[in-house]
């Protein structure tokens, strides 16, 4: 008699999240980090009209109350009008404060001295200008700037160093993009914002997935396996091409520096963060 064979499938660590628990966790995080630790009850964030800042706005509104959330639209003259209207939709849905501060004059004020700046350099100037404004607006309102970068873009190095990554508190930085999508649906972010193609909106017709050369759905699964220590062949065996695996791992490997503070020459046995070690919250 031939016995039936029951075969195990190739396992893959899940990226599923419990969105209700995640929201509860992140709301507690914001309250502890802002109010309990720093005594600051107001948040300032750039509201781009995209899903990341939308999710952070929803979380801040729950944690602090809508009246304590100050969202800022920071358009450059080439920014998409639909981004502005999407940001307005989010602010209206939440009842948070919304202000628009055009950065064109400030950005162009510098760029007139940099006529050779290509699109990448221009985009970096815009990103850094936006962060300058957010920090100043935070000082104006006795608030804390809140970060909106997700784990996927942090790992892929798909952000401007000392710009998008600068705010001292970030609730979604350990969530992959696909997890941010799941959270957005749970939070009730308008479907127009959830379903549109993610874009940094620094150049016309720009999309994240076009820039990255891979979909977020694939990138997130590969990133998760890379972080857990799987080798390329083991990752490819889970349904990816070698080129996809190389693309993702390559971006991670080339951008470790973007996830660190500046490199400081060590000269003593009291070097800060090398020998002299203290936690951020002491």
């Amino acid at each position, binding site marked *: 008699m031939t016995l039936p064979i029951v075969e195990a499938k190739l396992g893959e660590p899940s990226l599923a999240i419990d969105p209700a628990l995640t929201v*509860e966790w992140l709301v507690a995080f914001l309250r502890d980090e802002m109010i309990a*630790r720093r005594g600051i009850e107001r948040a300032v964030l750039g509201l781009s009209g995209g899903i990341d800042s939308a999710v952070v706005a929803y979380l801040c509104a729950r944690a602090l109350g809508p009246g304590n959330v100050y969202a800022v639209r920071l358009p450059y003259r080439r920014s998409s009008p639909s981004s502005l209207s999407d940001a307005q939709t989010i602010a209206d849905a939440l009842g948070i404060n919304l202000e628009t501060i055009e950065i064109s004059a400030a950005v162009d004020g510098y760029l007139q001295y940099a006529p050779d700046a290509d699109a990448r350099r221009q985009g970096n100037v815009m990103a850094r200008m936006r962060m300058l404004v957010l920090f100043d607006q935070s000082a104006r309102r006795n608030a804390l700037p809140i970060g909106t970068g997700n784990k996927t873009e942090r790992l892929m190095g798909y952000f401007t160093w000392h710009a998008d990554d600068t705010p001292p508190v970030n609730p979604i930085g350990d969530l992959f993009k696909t997890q941010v999508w799941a959270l957005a649906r749970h939070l009730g972010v308008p479907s127009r914002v959830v379903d549109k193609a993610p874009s940094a909106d620094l150049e016309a017709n720009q999309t994240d997935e076009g820039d990255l050369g891979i979909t977020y759905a694939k990138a997130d699964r590969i990133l998760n396996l890379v972080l857990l220590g799987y080798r390329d062949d083991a990752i490819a065996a889970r349904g990816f091409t070698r080129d996809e695996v190389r693309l993702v791992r390559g971006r991670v490997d080339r951008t470790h520096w973007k996830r660190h503070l500046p490199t400081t020459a060590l000269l003593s046995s009291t070097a800060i963060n090398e020998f002299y070690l203290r*936690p951020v919250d002491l």
Partner: protein
Amino acid sequence: MSGTVQCALVQSKPRKGDVPANLAAMRDAFVQLQDAPVDLIVFPEAALTGYFLEGAVYELAFGATELAARVDREWRAAGGDGRRVDVVLGFYEKFGGTYHNSALYVRCGAADGVHVVHVHRKMFLPTYGIFDEERFLTRGRHLGVFETAFGRGAILICEDAWHALMPTVAALKGARLLIVPSASPGRGLCGEDGLESNTRWKTLLASAAAEHGVYVLYCGLTGFEGGKGMSGGTCAFSPHGQLLVSAGPLEPCIVRVALDEAEIEIARATLPLLGDLSAVLPDLWLDDEIPIARRLEEAT
């Protein structure tokens, strides 16, 4: 041991590095506990300071005797003067020339003064990923079993309880109660019971309780420390491995549970695994094939 023992597990949320504020919060909990019978009060690991201290551990460490006197003062100031209670508290310990992640078992409130019953020094210091304990601390070398308010017991601090051998050794040495102060950063957002890390904890603790027929009291720190959320989850397991009570991950609270001596006898009579282990233990322990370092050194 005396029949039923009333326990209170204080899932606390310390202010980082602020010992006076955390002692004041301890006194508040003591005040709250004056209204009902309580024999044993447990606080989490590093309850006096918060968990992630890095180099500041040397500035915020206490001697056990000094700390015991302060805990006793707080208990008496809270209205417990003349009312005996046992308190377990996780703290960073200055011990001679070394520093440890320790838990104090102290008898407070008695007419004859304060009495340090036991100090357990954490043996398994996690030093991987976000954990860096052995960079700053020295590990303990002894798993002690001592007389608690509920007969013989042992303290296992956090990772101590992740190694199945630890509850086993404690039970073999006569422990009927395992007290587990912990500071566990929550990870994994899709566990069967919420956080994956808390699901893992409950699986481990239930298994230890059921295998050895012991009560297990787990007391978890809560609150965020630099983005890392301590996952609370304070709970208690019966000697049958049943979950008796469980707190959520995020809010400070006091968990109350009564331990009944009779349950241990029933559990051990129903499932005499500890007795079986005692009988087989010499064959396992004396197995020359077990790669114990000291034995290997002697052989070479």
